């Protein structure tokens, strides 16, 4: 199981425009999706109540609706019922109203008696979930600024900017895909996005570290091709590591996705999508963006005439 990508004759930097256009289009489509289809916000983010029913036998929607009619709950509004589980032994009913304590007690005793399992009931005012999401977003933005400062200090400002764009890209891809697939967004989803943010930044730094090392080895970089060659070489040097790392993390998240059960399915799906996006963006977005910007910066420095010491004019 050994291959040597350094000897591959692949030019990853040549196709950078395609990557930029591709990612740009993806982001635009994502924004359009967000505005048209929106996000399927779970009960964590919208006011209302959610009743999760569990039984030992298969359920039907009619049956669940009939059950709620029987207890005379919220007759003005028909709840949306979704079935889950291998043989639909789970059902989840959404109500726009927040239940009172009496209603909760009523529902619990009714279903407990009928199906032998106490249902899960969540009620929420939208404030709480929104606050959590806003808080997570704010944390990511502040963290981004802090990371840019650290990278600017340890590496160089342009590395920091490209790393952060990659990080935001990866987080956005998950959100856009969840909008497209209309999967319900809940609190664990936020944790998944945060995980991807952490992974993305980790992955990008490792790639940048090698680029920095190889750039520092060069005495002078006087053509774009030279710089592109260095970036390409660095990418090929770290590609085995990138693939192996993402594969091992994917093993864990795929195992959670396949075997982890209903409760964490959307969570692990977000992880899987985000991890793949994170590896892609490190190599094909962040590194390439840096290449373009760094060359502009070098050109600017070169085109500036060397400053004459003022003493000479005296």
């Amino acid at each position: 199981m050994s291959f040597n990508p350094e000897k591959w004759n692949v030019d990853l930097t040549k196709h950078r425009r395609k990557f930029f256009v591709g990612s740009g289009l993806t982001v635009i489509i994502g924004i359009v999706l967000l505005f048209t289809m929106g996000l399927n916000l779970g009960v964590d983010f919208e006011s209302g109540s959610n009743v999760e029913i569990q039984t030992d036998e298969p359920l039907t929607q009619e049956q669940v609706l009939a059950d709620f009619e029987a207890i005379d709950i919220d007759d003005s509004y028909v709840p949306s019922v979704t079935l889950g589980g291998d043989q639909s032994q789970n059902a989840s009913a959404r109500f726009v109203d927040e239940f009172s304590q009496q209603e909760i007690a009523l529902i619990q005793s009714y279903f407990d008696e009928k199906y032998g399992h106490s249902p899960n009931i969540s009620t929420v005012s939208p404030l709480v979930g929104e606050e959590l999401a806003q808080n997570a977003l704010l944390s990511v933005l502040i963290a981004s600024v802090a990371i840019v400062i650290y990278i600017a200090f340890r590496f160089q400002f342009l590395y920091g900017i490209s790393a952060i764009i990659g990080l935001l890209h990866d987080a956005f891809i998950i959100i856009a895909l969840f909008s497209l697939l209309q999967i319900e967004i809940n609190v664990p989803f936020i944790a998944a996005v945060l995980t991807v943010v952490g992974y993305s930044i980790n992955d990008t730094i490792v790639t940048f570290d090698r680029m920095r090392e190889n750039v520092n080895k060069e005495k002078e970089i006087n053509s774009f091709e030279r710089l592109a060659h260095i970036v390409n070489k660095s990418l090929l040097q770290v590609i085995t590591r990138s693939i192996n790392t993402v594969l091992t993390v994917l093993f864990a998240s795929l195992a959670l996705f396949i075997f982890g059960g209903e409760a964490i399915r959307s969570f692990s799906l977000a992880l899987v999508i985000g991890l793949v996006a994170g590896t892609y963006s490190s190599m094909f977005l962040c590194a390439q963006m840096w290449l373009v910007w760094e060359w502009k910066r070098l050109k600017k420095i070169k085109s500036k005439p060397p400053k004459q010491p003022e003493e000479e004019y005296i």
Partner: protein
Amino acid sequence: MVKKGRIALFFFIVALMATGIALLVRPVISDVNLGLDLQGGFEVLYEVEPINEGDTINDEALLSTTTALNERVNTIGVSEPTIQIEGDNRIRVQLAGVQDQESAREILATGGELTIRDVDDNILLDGSDLTQNGSSASLHADTNQPIVTLTLDDGDQFGEITQELSQRPDNENLLVMWLDFEEGDSYEEERLKEDPKFLSAASVRQPLFTRNVMIEGNFTTEETRFLAEILNAGSLPVDLNEIYSTSVGASLGEQAMKQTVNAGLIGVALIFIYMIMYYRFPGVIAVITLSAYTFLVLVIFNALNAVLTLPGIAALILGVGMAVDANIITYERVREEIKTGKSIKSAYKVGGRRSFATIFDANITTLIAAGVMFYFGTSSVQGFAVMLIISILVSFLTAVWGSRVLLGLWVDSKFLNKRPGWFGVKRGEIDEL
């Protein structure tokens, strides 16, 4: 010459670690506090509002309220409830494993009701007669005994009550202080018990025309502080407004937990197999240090008394990923150096040194992100950040340092010299110098 001592030391260390983990793994795993989403239970988020207009909700009021809630939770008999203050006016109560949610809700939502009664259980004073936050724990000026002092709104009223009480015979001239007196409780019954339900019973020998009342008893300093907080909570007319609640049925939580653990084990097993197949001998070292990593993270997690939730598991996965990554970065570097024709020993040295800088920068940036999330985040975000910070620090210890020590023993033993295959490098790939 192969130095057998190094290899022996390696096996000794590994055996020691394996024994330690094998002996402790069960108690450590059973000590992990599972969050509601994994265990089942009941969570409510309250907004604290003043009952009288003009009263303010400050830190003190919130702290006293949590103390009162804790007292309330204890009567339900829940071990280790989580009661957290969030923001300026919110309190989150998590009761893992609670079956009877309705009574839990009722007990929580009723405010702390303090009553002062006579021996016949007639109410003399109640919480509304106490000044808000007027109770405090202190030491008696003469005897240096821990005492609790109360402030009443109306000194004359207390004077009248004590005047009446002081005329009664001994054993009947008592001020009995109750917290949450329930219909059917009685002083006569409780005073015979070893652990009576009332807080204290003080005899009154003379009328006290004062607003300041002192409770003496055989208290410890701890108890007086606790009592003062409860009294403050009891006298605090806060409204607890339920703004969020969720309940996870025990069977659903249990099912989620079982599946998550199984899935986690499958995932880790796949990682182990892959690492050994790809990196050969260093892969084996990685498996050893990863096992130590997972074990240590749980130990530290328990020591911090943290609660494992789904977001926590997310951070744990990311941590495993970063620990694996640290190993992969190091081994890839060592392989590269071997391929350039260096000896195993110098390849290991150079590879180790270069990869360290990379791992350091990558981990510090993630640590910064985690630190910011912890500082600015709330509830789930903060829990995630704690787990992430622990993971990063422990992965530094095991995957970076531990891995190096263990692999270093083999490199130093010279056993690996001329055995690049053990690193997964074919002889044909090595450049001749």
